[in-house]
């Protein structure tokens, strides 16, 4: 078992999930409660990574954010190194790639909160952020769990984006799925089998955890796609 790759994969999934929740909660809140006409567009953009091939994403990260573009150069300056071939680059890729798996369950959960609860909180003097914190979030715990588990598992399985921009660096970008690929290419089928089973086990455990804690509902992806 390639423990370096395993730890890297888990670290990537964890960091991605945390960042994703921080981004997705306000975004999902806006989607759930806005009356703005931009909502349809934002929903579509958030759902895009589900249908977009990961290689497309990887391509854009490589080229559009590479040193040949002004934006890429600015980013390099900010980070101190180019986005590609770095853990930071993988995090950026993973956050975009797993975005819908965080936003959709959250938006669906927020929208499902009984409006009369929100009305009651409002008349009790609770403003928008207070309501979010004390009513919406506690009543959407299930959706938070779904969003976390799905984002985590989805990132563990990431391959296409990592292949495009990773550079296969042990400890930094050589995730378990890449290691598996290398093992197959190297005809190390026994090792590859072990790695594959391990990846399978992680995802299975994650989903079982989700189902056991939320027996009354399947992980919902909302009404999109």
């Amino acid at each position, binding site marked *: 078992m390639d423990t370096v790759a395993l730890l890297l994969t888990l670290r990537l999934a964890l960091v991605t999930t945390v960042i994703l929740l921080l981004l997705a909660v306000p975004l999902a809140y806006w989607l759930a409660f806005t009356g703005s006409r931009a909502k349809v567009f934002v929903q579509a953009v958030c759902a895009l990574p589900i249908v977009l091939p990961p290689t497309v994403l990887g391509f854009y990260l490589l080229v559009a954010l590479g040193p040949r573009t002004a934006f890429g150069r600015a980013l390099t300056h900010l980070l101190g190194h180019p986005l590609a071939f770095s853990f930071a680059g993988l995090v950026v890729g993973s956050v975009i790639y797993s975005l819908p798996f965080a936003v959709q369950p959250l938006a669906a959960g927020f929208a499902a909160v009984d*409006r*009369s609860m929100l009305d*009651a909180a409002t*008349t*009790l003097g609770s403003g928008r952020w*207070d309501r979010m914190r004390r009513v919406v979030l506690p009543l959407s715990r299930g959706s938070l769990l779904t969003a976390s588990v799905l984002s985590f598992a989805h990132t563990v399985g990431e391959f296409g984006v990592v292949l495009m921009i990773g550079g296969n660096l042990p400890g930094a970008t050589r995730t378990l799925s890449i290691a598996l690929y290398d093992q197959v290419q190297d005809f190390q089928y026994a090792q590859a089998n072990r790695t594959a089973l391990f990846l399978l086990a992680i995802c299975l455990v994650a989903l079982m955890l989700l189902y056991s804690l939320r027996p009354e509902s399947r992980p919902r992806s909302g009404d999109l796609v």
Partner: protein
Amino acid sequence: MSDASISALAGSPTSGAPNTPWLTVHLEHRFHHNGAGFHLHLAFSAHAQRTVVFGPSGSGKSSLLRAIAGLLKPDVATIEFHGTTVCNTRTIGSRPRIYIPAEKRRVGLVMQNPAVFPHLTASGNVAFALRGKDRSAQKEKIARLLEIVEAESLAARWPRELSGGQLQRIAIARTLAAEPTILLLDEPFAALDAPSRQQISQNLHQWARERGIPVLTVTHNLEEAFTAGDEVLTMEDGRVMAQGTPEKVLVMQRERLLQMLHAVPAPVPEETSLSPENDRAV
């Protein structure tokens, strides 16, 4: 039936009524959820400590309360509490439009749907609006409020364990805890049995009177309407039909009230109003 005008009964002798209205409402709003649409159009002032709005289902009573509380943004409205404007959709000269958001209006609203927060215990719910960190003082306060609604023993219980009537008590206590400047009650005792209803109503009105908090109650219960208020307004189809002391209104609306009594076989508990997206304004 003719519409009652605003000045129908200004300054009528009611017990302990101040001369300045504590509530002035002028409201026009169209609901578009039906094919036909529903039109709220009314204007009135409330002077009495206890005011009752009476009307059948669908007359727009709940929407009126929602508008006063700020949960409904009316097309055209002027709403004042104790002389302070909380809502004015018109700009006059250099004075801009005014709309104080619901969370800042200090309006206590007890809805038909108690909407008790399932993720907090009963006392957690009651404490929702309480600020300040003094735990023991809070506990004391919660206990006193639960006494008013005769629910002291329910403090540590979870909402999912409680009956409809118990939830309603908690909702009332929770609203009182927020120390509102006016109190709006939308059929708050519907799930309670008659003796509890009477006792709690008494406790509640006493509590409000002690603090000078005027109370506006909405009901479709004829008996309650004409015994529980110092002033009564009747509503029908989104309009105020009559306003005055219970005796006066009984006389003015006699024919209509008899019609309503005979048309409806038995007092039907009104459907729980869930959200403003209902087709009918309740």
